[in-house]
């Protein structure tokens, strides 16, 4: 999840290494033109960062603008969700439920591309108070929150004896209490409360609107849904504030060390690509063929999540986003090594396209459940390998610029 401190240590360590290698390099140039040693000297120079301080700062600033803009749009979309859920809870009908579901999907489209801002101890997932685990933890063990097929009394919502009152504190404390799949908050808790378990082969969950009218504990369920949605909005607002160009605390810290900032940008891209997305979100589901292993299993929105994550990785590099101008990381890499830049741009573009192309084979769930030699599974396997390779390429690009980029998640 988080590695600010180590990365700084690594950066310091490689600076020392660079210095040492540099000294050796100097010595060797005196002793003649041994080509191997000259190469060492060149590498040492690159290690000190191929980007000028101005270039690194420009890329970091534009990225910070992108982060703020995209989080701000996510907050706006999530507030719409909040207001539609309030309307649904006040008057639960099939129509108001559908409106709430539609805004959940729209808000997810805004959130998905921002996940690339993780993995560097930023506001979203720093170990002290980063809310990522509260915002987006998955997979859920549904029975921890509400009833499931064969177990009508399951979950916090139906545990009237153990949890007399559904409050914010109860829900927050329950998250990941006693197990990593005991998820009580965030996107997927809301998703589950809107859609319900996905018990069909070819569609999302079909939670009846009566769950919020005549069913047992309907009011507690409504209370739960309201509380988790309010919490999500607050968490996202808190993260967004930190990046505000007008006094955002983390933004200031981030821009104070442009080399570290560029390392963080690349790390978010690489770790999401090779680790979280390729591994946790796609490879596991391909292996188990279980819809519980898909990211947004209740709403069948997983393929959109995948595309959004891939798009976010691309966007972090190009900074192409409405309302964001300025020099992107891609622009400055172009200045120092056009070939490296073009290669990565092509890869990023191709993987977004490959992810989008999966839609013709059905939903994520349909693809993972299809025959082993089906075209959809083949393409999805290809996407896993390409996203791993993309992560490696991002780390390699970092190394070429003089940044050590870990792909750990």
């Amino acid at each position: 999840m988080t590695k600010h401190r180590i990365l700084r240590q690594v950066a310091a360590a490689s600076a020392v290494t660079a210095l040492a290698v540099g000294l050796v390099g100097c010595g060797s140039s005196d002793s003649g033109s041994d080509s191997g040693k000259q190469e060492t000297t060149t590498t040492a120079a690159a290690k000190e960062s191929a980007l000028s301080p101005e270039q690194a700062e420009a890329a970091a600033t534009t990225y910070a603008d992108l982060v703020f803009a995209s989080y701000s749009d996510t907050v706006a979309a999530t507030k719409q969700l909040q207001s539609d859920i309030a309307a649904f809870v006040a008057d639960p009908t099939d129509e108001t439920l559908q409106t709430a579901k539609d805004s959940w999907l729209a808000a997810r489209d805004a959130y998905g591309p921002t996940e690339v801002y993780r993995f560097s101890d930023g506001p979203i997932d720093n170990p002290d108070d980063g809310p990522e685990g509260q915002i987006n933890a998955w997979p859920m063990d549904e029975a921890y929150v509400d009833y499931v097929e064969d177990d009508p009394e399951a979950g916090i919502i139906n545990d009237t004896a153990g949890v007399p009152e559904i409050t914010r504190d109860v829900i927050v404390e329950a998250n990941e209490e006693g197990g990593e799949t005991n998820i009580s908050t965030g996107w997927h808790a809301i998703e589950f409360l809107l859609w319900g378990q996905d018990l069909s082969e070819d569609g999302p969950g079909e939670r009846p609107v009566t769950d919020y009218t005549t069913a047992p504990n309907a009011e507690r369920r409504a209370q739960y849904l309201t509380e988790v949605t309010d919490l999500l909005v607050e968490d996202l607002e808190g993260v967004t504030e930190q990046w505000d160009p007008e006094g955002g605390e983390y933004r200031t810290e981030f821009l104070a060390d442009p080399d570290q900032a560029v390392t963080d940008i690349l790390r978010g891209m690489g770790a999401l690509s090779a680790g979280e997305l390729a591994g946790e979100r796609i490879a596991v589901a391909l292996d188990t063929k279980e819809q519980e292993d898909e990211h947004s299993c209740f709403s069948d929105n997983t393929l959109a999540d995948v595309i959004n994550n891939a798009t976010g990785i691309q966007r972090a590099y190009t900074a192409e986003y409405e309302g964001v101008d300025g020099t992107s990381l891609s622009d400055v890499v172009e200045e120092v090594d056009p070939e490296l830049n073009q290669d990565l741009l092509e890869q990023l573009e191709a993987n977004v396209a490959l992810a989008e192309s999966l839609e013709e084979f059905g939903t994520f769930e349909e693809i993972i459940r299809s025959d082993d030699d089906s075209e959809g599974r083949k393409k999805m396997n290809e996407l896993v390998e390409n996203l791993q390779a993309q992560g490696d390429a991002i780390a390699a690009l970092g190394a070429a610029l003089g940044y050590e980029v870990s792909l750990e998640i």
Partner: protein
Amino acid sequence: MSSPTGRRVARGVLAFVVLGGLLAACSSDAPDRGAAHAAAGPTDAELRDQGGADGTTLNQGATAFAQGMEALDSQGRRDFAVGNSFFNQNWVMAPSSTVARDGLGPIFNAQSCSSCHFEDGRGQPPADDDDPERGLLIRLSVLDDDGDPQPHPVYGNQFQDRSIRKVPAEGSVQIDVTEEPGTYPDGTEYSLGAPTYTLVTPEGKEITGIVVSPRVAPAMMGVGLLENLPASVIEAQADPDDADGDGVSGRPHMTTDEDGKEVLGRFGWKAAVPSIRKQTTEAFANDVGITSEEHPDQPCTDAQAECLAAPTGEEDGEPEINRDKVDKIEFYSRTLAVPARRDVGTPDTTAGQKAFAAIGCTSCHTAELKTGSDSEIPALNDQVIRPYTDLLLHDMGPGLADDRPDGDASGSEWRTPPLWGIGLVETVNGHTRFLHDGRARSIEEAILWHGGEADGAKERFEDLPAKERKQILTFLESL
């Protein structure tokens, strides 16, 4: 606790002992166990990369124990992710729509591996009766006329305190802690919390006539490296008759594998288990109630009718977890990287490291070992690692004894646990509870609990000036 007079006597011989220890340390911290640097001692990089060059992660945050080794190939990374998923996710009761993950119980201690090994880290005892499962379980036995442990006719070998609906759990565990105050020779006071365990039936009746062994879940990282240590490397450290007269007499825990062949036990608090696969499938069977090819039986005894009658998650002759999933969890466990040491080479950690060796801790907490060359996972081969364990059994004295023999280990023998990562337990798991049942509330308390073969080292620790004691703790926290 010794009398003041006893202390003075002990201090009288201390100078000699420490000197001897120091001399020994030169050889024990730069051992001739196949490591490359018999003369020079390890470099800072080697001290840092505790899991070897290929098995160490620089992560020092909340996921420091949960990282895969970097050298994994594309398929390896996928298998790691799948193993991780099955390690983390809750098992649910059968029947359910979640076919691949049903079969929990009927009686169990935990719903998933990660509920005890949270983020692949260490469990802890419950804070109070209402505290949820955190990774302490109770093994139990009845002793026969020869004093040998036999399964309890009702509860078997393990006390499962949770159950699926319509099946009674075996009961609950009551922990009473007595404070035992002590004083360092320099007058500094401390207190150790000595736990006693009472097992109570659901009806509130105390279960008597049993011996119990409470155990917390240890951290997972680096187990693949420990598994790949040649048996000869571990056995070479043994000194069962204390031929060298240092008061420490480690011995290997020989056990048998599924084919009846004699093999070295390495895992578990008493080294009763020879392999990660066996440890994994036993834990699935006993802790989670999940059957496998290796352990096809549910954790019910003949006396537990509801347990035996409960629906299972077995389908089409397949156990609740199939071979492929066990393979992936095994692979995942084997390839969990060891976190790098922090603060290598600072004055305090360097001094602490020297003192740690000088007072004899490294007699059991072996600093450096080299893995074998035959693993199918290249990252595990030929790694010079610094686990700070000899994987041998040592008599730790009556204070720590559970009086329940386990395999060939006596009631007072325990395997030296590895110390790598010990300083990150607080970051990863939010606590500093150590030893087999988590009774120690800090690393310092864990040291003070040492007895038996470790009595000498413990007393030498107590006799150190406060500053040096602190340096040893600082060193341990950097592991």
